[in-house]
């Protein structure tokens, strides 16, 4: 199965465990929102699962050899780093690197994947722009397009919606949901409960080193969970537009 399976998964930072004995299985077709307050270990869970941090227990992804892993999972880190003033198309083409044989030039299939990623992120007019000269939100979209161009069965993104305007936040979440519907396994950390409720098929809430809740959005996003994990009160409603979750106040 191409997805992510964690078994008794723990990650330590210094002397204390950030995550303890997490067992979790995420399959193809799921769009999983990873929720939790700051410091709950969302990024740590993803980096550990990818083999970028030392961990105990098993992760089906970090078990893979490096080259196979690069063809299995695309990772978009939270730090949106673009080191050199390369063109947008060049940057997105980097996503094809794991698929290129040594010394081989990008094939028509590679170019098709690049073009498709550009189209999906609405970056047609940006192809020849210098990536470092774009605005933060535009850069974020270019970097997401790079991850899409990698065309892997698993897509892991760390707070992709941060810094995007409302229209692009919605478009992005729709894109991720579509990827999942198309058979990919999408895992995204996020803070916007409203977007999570509307676009994710499943939510995993991290708190105090473990999984506090796991399930479909309407089961997970309860007043009790929000109060316990996030210390907030929220307006939760089912509408014709789907579920609405709007935080309205802080408890205590």
């Amino acid at each position: 199965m191409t997805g992510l399976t964690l078994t008794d998964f723990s990650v330590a930072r210094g002397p204390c465990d950030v995550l303890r004995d997490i067992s979790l299985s995420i399959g193809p077709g799921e769009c999983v929102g990873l929720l939790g307050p700051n410091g709950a270990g969302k990024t740590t869970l993803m980096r550990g699962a990818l083999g970028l941090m030392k961990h105990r227990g098993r992760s089906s992804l970090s078990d893979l050899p490096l080259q196979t892993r690069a063809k299995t999972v695309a990772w978009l880190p939270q730090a949106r780093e673009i080191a050199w003033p390369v063109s947008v198309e060049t940057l997105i083409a980097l996503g094809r690197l794991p698929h290129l044989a040594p010394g081989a030039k990008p094939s028509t299939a590679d170019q098709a994947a690049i073009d498709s990623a550009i189209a999906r992120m609405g970056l047609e007019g940006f192809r020849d722009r210098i990536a470092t000269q774009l605005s933060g939100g535009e850069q974020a979209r270019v970097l997401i397009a790079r991850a899409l161009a990698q065309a892997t069965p698993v897509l892991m993104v760390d707070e992709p919606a941060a810094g995007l305007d409302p229209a692009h936040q919605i478009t992005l979440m729709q894109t991720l949901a579509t990827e999942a519907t198309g058979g990919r396994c999408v895992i995204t950390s996020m803070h916007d409960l409203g977007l999570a409720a509307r676009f994710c098929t499943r939510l995993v809430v991290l708190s105090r080193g473990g999984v506090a809740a796991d399930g479909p959005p309407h089961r997970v996003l309860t007043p009790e969970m929000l109060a316990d994990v996030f210390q907030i009160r929220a307006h939760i409603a089912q509408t014709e537009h789907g579920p609405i979750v709007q935080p309205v106040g802080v408890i205590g």
Partner: protein
Amino acid sequence: MGRGLVAGLLALVAGLFAASLLVGPAGLAPVQALSALIWGDALAETLVMREIRLPRAILAVLVGAALGLAGAAMQGYLRNPLAEPGLIGVSGSAALGAVLALQTGLAAAHVLALPFAALSGAVLAVLIILALAGPRGGSITLILAGIAVSALAGALTSLVLNLSPNPFAASEIVFWMMGSLQDRSMTHVWLAAPFIGLGAVVLLAQGRKFDALTLGEDAAVSMGVHLGRLRLTLVLGVASMVGAATAVAGAIGFVGLVVPHILRPLVGARPSVLLPASALGGAVLVLMADIAVRVILPTRDLKLGVLTAIVGAPLFLHLIYKTRAQGQL
């Protein structure tokens, strides 16, 4: 874009290589000089061409290519346009080895004693750096280890100068450290060429990994780049090239810093294309500088390293000013 630039640079290297063969105090006519070089038909002229000018021109290409390529690789790995080959302390340590050879008189005893001492210095620096920043250390550890090794090598070089028994030894050391290609022989070429060639092959093969690093270390690893292995390859490749270049030519600054910086906009900033372009650009710059030292002050021994620094530093200031004006820095 990349291919045209590489072709242009190749043509420039070829032209400057020929020019370098034709400039010198012996004042040979061009046709006569080239015929003496190729056919060996005139005793004195052939000697000048084959034993003096040819090794000098070849070394200019080798040393320039080594510094340019090593600079581009360092900048690509550290994702910082201010990185340069000297950053990992190899050139400083190679210089220290050479200075010790000059000081102890070994250099006078055998023609290869100095380059070998310099290479040993470079190897020692690599061992220290790998011990400090070895397979687990990050790029910051690498930079810090390099700075520490550079500082130590610089201090020890000063100590040798300080304790130098006579002013002649001291001035010989100072002049050597300024960097020059004068009076080098084919022996120097044969000594440096394998190290520089090997380093070039190894570093040029890493182009795509440097490309992937454009997105940061985390993203690069997730795209299949083994960072520890890349760092080891980088240190060994840069050390092999820069150690050998310093061993035969002394310390020549600014080439590794300026050349990638000039060429970056011309290759669309892609690190993989910048590597070969910078190797050729470095060869062009050092050939030009080595011709210039012979043309500007033919009677005085103007040192190559002094000229590259005098031209390179203002050029670098200008580039920074220009980049800043475009809002890219």
